[in-house]
Every structure is written in structure tokens, then in C-alpha cells.
């Protein structure tokens, strides 16, 4: 199985990212605190969902992002609310890192009226259009073309307004990289030089199948085939992700077209919580492999680096941890106290009201 960190050691390619200046870039102290806080928020939320799922408190399945937090945090640190991001079925981390409200997300997962999608979407579909979060998505690879469309719109709008460009980011996994939409959209994004940043979270598994069993070659080579600039990074190193994403987002904003980041990481939890029921004893990975990746935990690594470099003291970080614990507790309490979803919405939300000028149009039949 090539899910280990050894797979990180790839040869570099002409045209790949990583010039001298970028290689040296490091987050400021303020940025570093924010990265840490984002990762811890995601981790604590996911741990709480893991526990509450096991306790039978959630109506639907949850797909957790534990171990992959550095990718969402490192990429979204460069994004504005006006930028777009599409996400995956494992989307809580992207939602939170892009600025989504933790209370509204938890209320959604608890199927409450106060949920960000009013209880109509659930865990796999959290979205906040006001923050450019185009939604987690239950179809593997669906975000590729949606993000491409948003990038096309952003490009057209920047031409209209002569303003600095809006960027569209597509988070997807190694599994989605085997969908034909990746080839289609790489072709379009490269051809039209769209402000699109591909972020492939290679977490080692297509649901319950190791990536090596279903994926030929290097995923990043698929982007190289279209002359799209590529960065292959350690996805458990938030600084490395942050640096690669900074280059890619800057290139997109400046009109330099698409970029492709492959972040090698690992899914600590199962494909979804309660997967043991569907596996019924079947196994697709070894405990030792999971343990090996626990040793490369992105939060623990970053925390150690912050303390060693003198950027933060353990007490500083403990204070952040405590604040996050309170926020998560508050969000769950908010969700639990929420009103049940309004079932009538299922009948009324399918269509937006048509404009009045049509309703009143005097046009007749024959």
C-alpha cells in the first residue's frame, strides 16, 4: 500500500511550483495562530460528531476529516468570503475553514430549523452561499465542474470590472481524481486560463478501497499533462499546504490560470462513522498504518513547531484550545436546543418564486 509518507518523496518536474521566494515564505505569527485555531476547531468538532454519532444522537451518517485538517486550514487561509470553494462528502473542515458558522453547521447536522440549510441538506451538504461555500456534495467529483463554472464566472466578472480576480477552489479526493470530470475540467480550466485552484486531498482511500488499488500513476501527473502548475505537498504539514496554496491563489488572482495541489494526507477515521456495520468484520487497512499516521498528526506537529520556534508558548495554545472547546460545546447546545426542521419546506423549496412580471403577464394561449 502506498499510503505512507514515503510516497511524498517525488521527483520534481519542470514547471512545478516552489521558487526560492515561495519556499522561504512562512506564516506570520497572527497567521500561524489562525491556522492552529482553525485546525483545532475542525478537530474538536469532528471528535464531537464521532462521539455523538456513536451515541446515536445524529439522524444521518457523518464522514469525518480527522487527520486532514491542515489541508482545509492551509488553503482557506488565503481565501476571502467572495472567493468560491466546492467541497466533498467529507466537508465539515472546508465549511469551517472557509468561514462557515459552527453553530449553524451543527444545527444542520442535528436536522434543525436553525441549520445552515434549514435541515434540508445535512452533514454531507453543508453550504453557505453568502461566504462562497458552494457546498459539501454527496457525489464524488461533482465539485469539479461546479468549481469550474464558478471560476468561469469569476473570470468573466473580473473582465467586466477590471478588478483583482476572484478565485475558485475545488477540494476533492484521490477517489474523485478517477472521475472523468477531472480531465474535462483540467482541459477547460487550462484552455480558458480560469482562476481555479485544484486541491486534491489524497487521503489514501476511495471509500473502502486503498488508492493504490484503483489509481494508476501519480495523480498530479494528470494536471501536468495539461501544463497546469503543480505542487505536491505533505498534506499533514500546514505550513507546506499554506505555502503552496498561497502561490496558487496568487497566480489565480493575477490572471495566471489554474494550479493543482496534491496534498498527501490520511483519513484517520473510516469512510463514515458506523462503517463497522457495513463492513461486518471485513478489513481494508491495518491498525499499524493508522497508528503510523497518528504519529504524523498535523495539529501536534504544528503545535510543536510553534513552541519550538518561540512563536507561541504552550500556555498560548492551551488558551486557544480552551476557547475552541467552549465554542464546540456552545454549538452542540445550540443544535440540541433547536427546533425540528419544518417538513413543509420539502414542498416549497424546490422552486424559487417566478418573477411577478411573468405571473401577471397577459400573454394568452392560442
Amino acid at each position: 500500500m502506498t499510503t505512507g509518507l514515503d510516497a511524498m518523496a517525488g521527483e520534481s518536474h519542470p514547471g512545478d511550483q516552489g521558487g526560492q521566494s515561495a519556499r522561504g515564505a512562512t506564516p506570520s505569527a497572527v497567521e500561524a495562530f489562525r491556522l492552529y485555531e482553525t485546525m483545532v476547531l475542525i478537530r474538536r468538532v469532528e471528535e464531537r460528531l464521532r462521539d455523538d454519532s456513536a451515541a446515536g444522537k445524529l439522524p444521518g451518517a457523518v464522514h469525518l476529516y480527522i487527520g486532514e485538517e491542515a489541508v482545509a486550514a492551509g488553503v482557506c487561509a488565503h481565501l476571502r468570503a467572495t472567493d468560491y470553494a466546492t467541497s466533498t462528502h467529507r466537508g465539515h473542515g472546508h465549511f469551517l475553514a472557509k468561514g462557515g458558522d459552527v453553530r449553524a453547521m451543527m444545527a444542520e447536522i442535528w436536522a434543525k430549523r436553525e441549520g445552515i440549510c434549514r435541515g434540508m441538506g445535512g452533514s454531507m451538504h453543508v453550504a453557505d452561499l453568502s461566504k462562497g461555500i458552494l457546498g459539501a456534495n454527496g457525489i464524488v467529483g461533482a465539485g469539479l465542474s461546479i468549481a469550474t463554472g464558478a471560476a468561469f464566472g469569476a473570470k468573466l466578472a473580473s473582465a467586466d470590472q477590471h478588478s483583482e480576480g476572484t478565485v475558485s477552489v475545488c477540494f476533492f479526493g484521490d477517489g474523485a481524481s478517477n472521475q472523468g470530470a477531472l480531465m474535462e475540467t483540467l482541459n477547460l480550466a487550462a484552455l480558458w486560463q480560469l482562476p481555479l485552484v485544484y486541491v486534491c486531498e489524497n487521503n489514501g482511500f476511495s471509500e473502502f478501497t486503498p488508492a493504490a488499488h484503483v489509481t494508476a500513476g501519480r495523480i498530479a501527473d494528470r494536471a501536468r499533462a495539461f501544463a497546469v502548475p503543480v505542487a505536491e505537498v505533505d498534506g499533514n504539514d500546514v505550513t507546506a499546504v499554506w505555502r503552496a496554496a498561497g502561490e496558487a491563489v496568487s497566480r489565480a488572482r493575477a490572471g495566471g490560470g489554474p494550479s493543482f495541489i496534491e496534498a498527501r494526507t490520511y483519513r484517520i477515521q473510516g469512510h463514515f462513522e458506523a462503517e463497522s456495520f457495513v463492513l461486518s468484520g471485513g478489513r481494508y487497512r491495518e491498525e499499524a498504518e493508522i497508528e503510523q499516521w497518528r504519529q504524523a498528526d498535523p495539529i501536534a506537529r504544528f503545535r510543536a513547531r510553534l513552541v519550538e520556534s518561540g512563536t507561541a508558548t504552550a500556555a498560548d495554545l492551551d488558551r486557544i484550545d480552551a476557547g475552541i472547546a467552549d465554542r464546540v460545546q456552545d454549538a452542540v447546545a445550540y443544535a440540541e436546543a433547536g427546533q425540528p426542521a419544518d417538513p413543509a419546506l420539502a414542498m416549497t423549496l424546490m422552486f424559487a418564486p417566478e418573477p411577478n412580471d411573468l405571473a401577471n403577464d397577459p400573454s394568452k394561449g392560442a
Partner: protein
Amino acid sequence: MTAMARTRLLQAIRDGIVEEMDRDPKVIVYGEDVELSIVGDLRGVYERFGPDRIRNTPISETSLTGMTVGLAAAGYRPVVQMMFANFMYTGMDAIGNQMSKLRLMTGGQLELPITIIATCGGGSSNAAQHSDTSYPMIMNLGGINVAVPATSADAKGLVKTAIRSPNPCFIFEPNGRGGELGEVPDGEHLVPFGRAAIRREGGDVTIVAIGRMLKPALAAAALLDDEGVSAEVLDPRTLVPLDEVAILGSVGKTGRLVIVDEARECCSAASQIAAVVAERGFPLLKAPIRRITTPNVAMPYAPNAEAQVIPGELRIAAAARELATRDAKVPA
């Protein structure tokens, strides 16, 4: 009296799109070979608006449909020319899982002012992969308006309504050769969704004719008229929303219903209309409902075989005649 111009159906669609592109800079058009407009419903649009408003795409239907959702989120009103309705099958994820569902799934956050245009139907020896009438599949998704213009005036008016609508709308235009010639009112002309048109009044039998089936239905009605059977011909114009009131009103008048649909019989639009009338209008009926559809087969290539499976005026007339005269056969 409104001034009129005689226009082919595909040109009427073009005129509607051009007017909406003039009206709203957020309306953009893309698809395969739209710059030359191989289908014929976008002639001259590229020359007028240029590549930021209309452009050719690669042959990538999965992305053509999917990009509409992202463009909608970015504030645009995409119009996609899909060429043949069969090509929707290749682009089906974004249709079936995204654009038809995301308004509900986001709790109403996302508006999806998307227009998809495709030609449908047989009759041109294009064979089965270029001849489907695929609107039943779209109707079943629940979140998409479906328009089936049969006249030039409706084609223009419905496409304009579709582009202004905040919801995904599919326009199924008849396959090939520019469509029928017809009068189109000058100036602003919008046709609202969900309002059927009575194309011919009659008292003995109602013929609901969908899209391109209007022409053979009217021919059948003329045949029947010579025999003393008075057929009312109703054009639903949109299938989602469906003007159930108009259909039930006509059946209330005639007591007999024939539905003509070029889609395959199984789960056709005709099946849905028949179910609505059976459920809500059963006491109105003097005879069983008849569906005249393409049988559940792939469209054959040979012109004579095509002509046999596509509903034609003789099949329509025979069904209507049988319904209209069956009571008379029963001794009083």
C-alpha cells in the same frame, strides 16, 4: 392588432435569446459548436456578442451541465445548447443530482437560473442515439421546469421566460430543419409557464399533443372533422409545471382523452397526464384514456421504420375516432 413576423421555430428561439442577452449582461451562452450554430438556434449570436457572452466548449457534457451550477452561484444566467437531447445522458449528474436538487438542499440559499436547450425527437434518420425525446426523465427530477414549444411564438416566449426564471428550465425544441414556420408577435413577448393553449376547439374528444406532435394532432383533427367527429386539440406548452386545470377543463367538455407524446410509452409525459386525469377527472370520462406514443423501442434508422414508431396522424385519428364512436356502438 399586434404586428407579426413569420419566423421558423429555431429562429424564434434565437430571437428570444438575443433579446434576453441584450436585456441582461449576466446571460451567457455556451455549448458545442454554438459559435457557428450548427443546430441553427444561435445564428449570428457570436458575431453580435463575442466570446465573453457565447463560446464553443470542448465535447465535455459532464462539465457543461455541472458548470451551470457554479456560474449560477457566481451570479450568471447560463444558457447551454446541448445539441441532441440524448447528450443529456452524458451530462446527467449535474442535472439529476445538482441543479434539480440544490435549491432544496441548501435550504433555499442557491438560485439556479439555468436554461438548457436541446433538440429532441426522430424523423430525420439520425438513429437512436440522436432521436430521443427525453423530457420524461427530466420531469421526474422534480426541480426543473420543462418547456416543449410547438410554435414559433411559443418558442420565443418560453425561452425568454426560461432565461428570466430563477429556476432550471429545459427547452426541448424539435429536431432538424428549422422547425415549423409561424407568426411571432413583434416586441416583448413572454409566454408564462404552466398555461396550456387550446389550438383547436371541439366537443367530442380532447387530443393533448406535446411539442412536435401538435402538427399530426391537428391533421388528425381535420380528418375527424370530415367524418363528423369534433376534436379539441390542447397544447400543454410546458410539462413542468403542467396546466392540469386546462386539461381537466377540456376533458370535462368532451369526456374523452387521447394524449400524443413522441416519448416512449413507459413513464412518458402522456402517462403522467393520463394518471392526473384518471385520479382527478374520472367522473368526467365517458371512455378509457388512450396514450399514443413511441413504443418502448430505440428509434430505428430506416425512414419507413421511423415513420411506423413515431405517432402519426392516422394513429391519432384512429384512437380518437374509436373513443368518440364507442358509445354509439352500445345499443341504447
